[in-house]
């Protein structure tokens, strides 16, 4: 049944912000059914969340695997409960909170699935376990081996990275192989880095653009596990070897290892995002992050490759800031700089 919208959008927005729940629901229905906003769910999302947020907002739980491999493990802390003695539990809890906050406040995204999904994390996974991962349902952190790696909860951008894999899974669903997989890794790095920069209140030119700077023991010759600014320079260490990431298509690595080089070639789109953020100046999450987020949420598909990412981010920049706007030109330049 057609619905005609007589109440101006700015009044509907006011209702969404100030009305009771039934008024909010009506206002939201009106806004979303009007022709002028159809297909622009993400642009309206900042308002929508005011009406659709589940009571209580973020819902974090941190579990302790107690050096075993069974998930999720024993509950160690849940939403709203005070700090516990175990600092690693608190780091996972706080990091999940910082990530939730950035996605909510900047992109009006309500958790991993945009529907208020629980954010579950498990710490103390395995024995001397040198990794962190998203298993499709939750985040998991190892304690590190104490010789090369510290506990993986030490790095906020790593927590943001893992949670972003969940966001990617619920949006573009980028296949985890080859170029789509490298985009998957890169988007996770981008949002992980944005979580850290947002928490620190840093502008693009103040940020270190390193991923996992806090992960290494002092004796290791490493700045982090990846550099978005200068891929291939994050570490050069007798045990770890040299950072192999390329930062330009000329150096693209064709390999069957690592699901087709997903952690290698992600350096190329990572550097493109860095280039965009510094061109646009200011806080990276405000414009560059929005362009990337909208591209992920609205344009990219599971089999998207680097060329598709160029096309989609240029398109989104045009939609958000205007055709041939400085922002759209900056997106083109940033990709061109990495050979795309």
């Amino acid at each position, binding site marked *: 049944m057609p619905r005609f919208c007589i109440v101006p959008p700015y009044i509907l927005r006011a209702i969404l912000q100030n009305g009771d729940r039934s008024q909010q629901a009506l206002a939201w229905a009106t806004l979303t059914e009007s022709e002028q906003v159809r297909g622009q769910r993400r642009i309206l999302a900042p308002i929508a969340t005011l009406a659709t947020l589940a009571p209580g907002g973020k819902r974090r739980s941190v579990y302790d695997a107690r050096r075993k491999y069974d998930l999720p493990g024993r509950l160690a802390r849940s939403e709203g409960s005070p700090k516990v003695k175990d600092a690693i539990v608190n780091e996972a809890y706080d990091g999940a909170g910082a990530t939730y906050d950035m996605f909510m406040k900047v992109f009006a995204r309500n958790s991993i699935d945009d529907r208020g999904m629980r954010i579950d994390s498990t710490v103390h996974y395995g024995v001397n376990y040198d990794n962190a991962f998203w298993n499709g349902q939750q985040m998991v952190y190892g304690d590190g081996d104490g010789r090369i790696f510290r506990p993986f909860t030490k790095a906020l951008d790593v927590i943001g990275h893992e949670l972003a894999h969940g966001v990617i899974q619920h949006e573009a669903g980028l296949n985890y192989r080859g170029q789509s997989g490298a985009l*998957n890794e890169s988007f996770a790095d981008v949002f992980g880095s944005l979580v850290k920069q947002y928490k620190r209140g840093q502008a693009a030119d103040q940020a270190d653009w390193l991923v996992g700077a806090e992960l290494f023991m002092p004796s290791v010759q490493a700045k982090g596990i990846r550099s978005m600014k200068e891929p291939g320079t994050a570490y050069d260490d007798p045990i770890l070897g040299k950072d192999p990431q390329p930062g330009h298509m000329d150096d693209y690595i064709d390999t069957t290892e690592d699901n087709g080089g997903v952690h290698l070639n992600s350096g190329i789109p990572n550097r493109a995002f860095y280039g965009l953020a510094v061109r646009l100046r200011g806080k990276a999450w405000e414009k560059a992050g929005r362009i990337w987020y909208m591209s992920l949420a609205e344009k990219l598909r599971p089999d998207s490759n680097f060329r598709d990412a160029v096309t989609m981010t240029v398109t989104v920049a045009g939609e958000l800031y205007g055709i041939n706007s400085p922002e759209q030109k900056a997106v083109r330049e940033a990709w061109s700089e990495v050979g795309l």
Partner: protein
Amino acid sequence: MGRKIHGSLNSETLPTKKARRLNSLLKSSRFFELPVRLEPHLPAPDRFIYRLTIESDQGTHTIEVSEAALPEDLRPLLDFITQSLLLK
């Protein structure tokens, strides 16, 4: 998170107790019966991918297994090897 680590162990130079343990884990994991590739049904971002080659009197066998598709009996063998390499 995307790191590549190599290492090798020689059972002939391991202490006797450790060498016995290694042989026992090889048997219990039925390593030589495992397929050369074990992949998860669902995407597994950032999970380890192990490539493991064993050379013995029985011959040489190499497997590549995602941690997300790891047979339960293989985990103790991988843990043993990983820990032994870390302590080297």
